[in-house]
Each structure stands twice: as structure tokens, then as C-alpha cells.
């Protein structure tokens, strides 16, 4: 498998639980990178803290495992100094939108060319199953034994209003969609957000009695629909999958290098 060429196999088998959706995301992402034909030296993967962020240790690219929630800040720095590199930032839902919420909206606002992959398993898995801002109302978690009372974000709406120029959602069940969407997100010039709904059978699944990993994946199949499909007419509660936003706006590092040229020109005139 050519996908095997992109991993650090000395760290395998990986740390994730049996049936964890993050492994499926890793699989789909490597497939996307392989299909794009990118070399290992062209990719920088920056991650924060959490189950999902362990992904940067398993891939054989340039990798940075940074502090909790601040992956986008580190990635912005890398992109500013080396704009020719492709930055991929795998994050968990808590890492991206609770601890790193501010970095997320401002990276989106700047439209800097980063690819943020948010693996949304709706729970803090690594620390023992506490509820996250993506858990939603009426969900059981180890810190909400009588169920949560707060509501969740819609990542797509948040990305849209923050100014992201590419936003898409898919699930671990739809593996071919993961690959095609990540490919588009990497090729997109500007800030791209890919939300992948992932399963945590160990905590989220067990505490909410959703069954094991493949039963949770069946739920993704049942509870989602492609944007524009007729299933909306039957059930309005279905979660939409697909590309929500794709538009062209001036990219931050391009604009910055133009600014540098103008400033250098002025300096030489003196």
C-alpha cells in the first residue's frame, strides 16, 4: 500500500482505541495526499493536544506537536515564513473550538492558506470523556452524568461567519468523501475547514448507549444527508454533508508578500 510510505511505522500499532474514527480519518487523509502526489517534504502537519492530535506523530511529514488549542497559531507562523509549504492541521473538536476557539475564528478571518481538519467526536476522549462544546444538548458525559444542558456549535455556520473560504463536512462512514473533500481542501487557496464527524466508542458511544464503532458509523449514515438531496423533505433533522462554502478571496500570505514588495520598493527609493 503506498499509504504505508507516508507513516512512521515504528509507532504502530497506534494509541487510539479499537474502532476509533481518528484512524479512519488518518487513512482517508493519507489516501488524499497520495492521490495528490505531494511529496513528504511539501507537507507540514501541526497539531495541538488530544487524541486527534496524536496523528502528527504517526505521519512521516514535517510535524509539529504543539500546545493545546494553539496549533493554528503555530501553523500560521510556519505558513508566514515558508508560504510554499502545505499546512495541514488536524484538531479535535475541543482543541479547535473550545481551547483554540479564538485562534480558529481569526485564522478563518485572515484567510491564511491552512487546511484545518476538525475530527468531531463530540467528547474529550484523552482525558476521560468530559463533554465538549460540540457535545450538544442532552448528551451524557463523565462530567454530565444527568446529561448536558448547553448547546453545541454548528462548525459550518461558525466557519462561514468567521470568513473561511472553504468549509465542508463529512463523516467517517463516508470514507471516499473524506478523501475527495480533503483533496479539495488542500488544493484550495485560503483557509479551509473540514469537519469530519468521528466516533468515540469508548466514551461517547458507551455513555450514550450508541453501541460499538460500526453501530455508531451506521448512525452517521442514517442521520446525515448530502447537501441538496431530497431526504430533507422526509426528515428535517438530518445533518448535512458536503461542501458548504467554496469561494475565492485574496489569501493572506500572498497579500503579505505584495506588501513586503511595496515596502521594499519605498525603501529603495529613499
Amino acid at each position, binding site marked *: 500500500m503506498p499509504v504505508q510510505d507516508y507513516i512512521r511505522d515504528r509507532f*504502530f*500499532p497506534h494509541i487510539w482505541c479499537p474502532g476509533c474514527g481518528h484512524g479512519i480519518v488518518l487513512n482517508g487523509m493519507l489516501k488524499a495526499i497520495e492521490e495528490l502526489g505531494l511529496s513528504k517534504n511539501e507537507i507540514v502537519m501541526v497539531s495541538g493536544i488530544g487524541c486527534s492530535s496524536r496523528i502528527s506523530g504517526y505521519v512521516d511529514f514535517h510535524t509539529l506537536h504543539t500546545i493545546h488549542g494553539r496549533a493554528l497559531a503555530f501553523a500560521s507562523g510556519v505558513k508566514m515564513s515558508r508560504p510554499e509549504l502545505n499546512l495541514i492541521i488536524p484538531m479535535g473538536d475541543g482543541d479547535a473550538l473550545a481551547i483554540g476557539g479564538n485562534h480558529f475564528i481569526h485564522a478563518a478571518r485572515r484567510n491564511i492558506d491552512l487546511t484545518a481538519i476538525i475530527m468531531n467526536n463530540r467528547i474529550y476522549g484523552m482525558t476521560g470523556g468530559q463533554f465538549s462544546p460540540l457535545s450538544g444538548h442532552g448528551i451524557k458525559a463523565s462530567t454530565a452524568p444527568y446529561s448536558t444542558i448547553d448547546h453545541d456549535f454548528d462548525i459550518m455556520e461558525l466557519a462561514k461567519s468567521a470568513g473561511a473560504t472553504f468549509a465542508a463536512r463529512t463523516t467517517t462512514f463516508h470514507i471516499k468523501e473524506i478523501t475527495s473533500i480533503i483533496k479539495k481542501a488542500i488544493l484550495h487557496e485560503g483557509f479551509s475547514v473540514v469537519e469530519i464527524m468521528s466516533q468515540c466508542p469508548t466514551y461517547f458511544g458507551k455513555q450514550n448507549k450508541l453501541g460499538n*464503532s*460500526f453501530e455508531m458509523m451506521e448512525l452517521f449514515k442514517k442521520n446525515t444527508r448530502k447537501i441538496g438531496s431530497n431526504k430533507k423533505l422526509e426528515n428535517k433533522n438530518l445533518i448535512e454533508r458536503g461542501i458548504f462554502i467554496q469561494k475565492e478571496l485574496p489569501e493572506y500570505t500572498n497579500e503579505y508578500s505584495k506588501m513586503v514588495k511595496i515596502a521594499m520598493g519605498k525603501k529603495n527609493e529613499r
Partner: protein
Amino acid sequence: MSKQKKILHKINRNWCKGCGICVHFCPKNVLELDKDDKVFAAHPDDCIFCRMCELRCPDLAIEVISQGNKI
């Protein structure tokens, strides 16, 4: 399609954690878990080479190889 093509399921037993995702989603029930909860190809002749097991495996433990004629 040639009937003679042989499909090989290369399974890395050290990486397989026996989650059963591949077994559950195989459209032809080719795969099964053994007594150690590791996957093996119980009916390799039924395989239609859709490779969904390889694509969905969270542990990157399966590789499906088609020998002989390409589909």
C-alpha cells in the same frame, strides 16, 4: 471479468485491534474475526475487490491486492 483473478487480503495481525469495522461493512461477508479477535479472510473467493475494508480500517492493517487481471 476474469474468474481466474486472485484477490489477496494482506492483514497485519500486529496492528489489527479487532474492532470489526471491516467485518461489518464488507458487502460480501468475506472477513471474519478469529478467536484472538484478529481479522482474517474467511471467504476470499467471494471478494469483489471494493476495498472498503482497506479504506475504512482505522489501524491501516488491511491491504487488498488483486493478482492477475485488473478489474
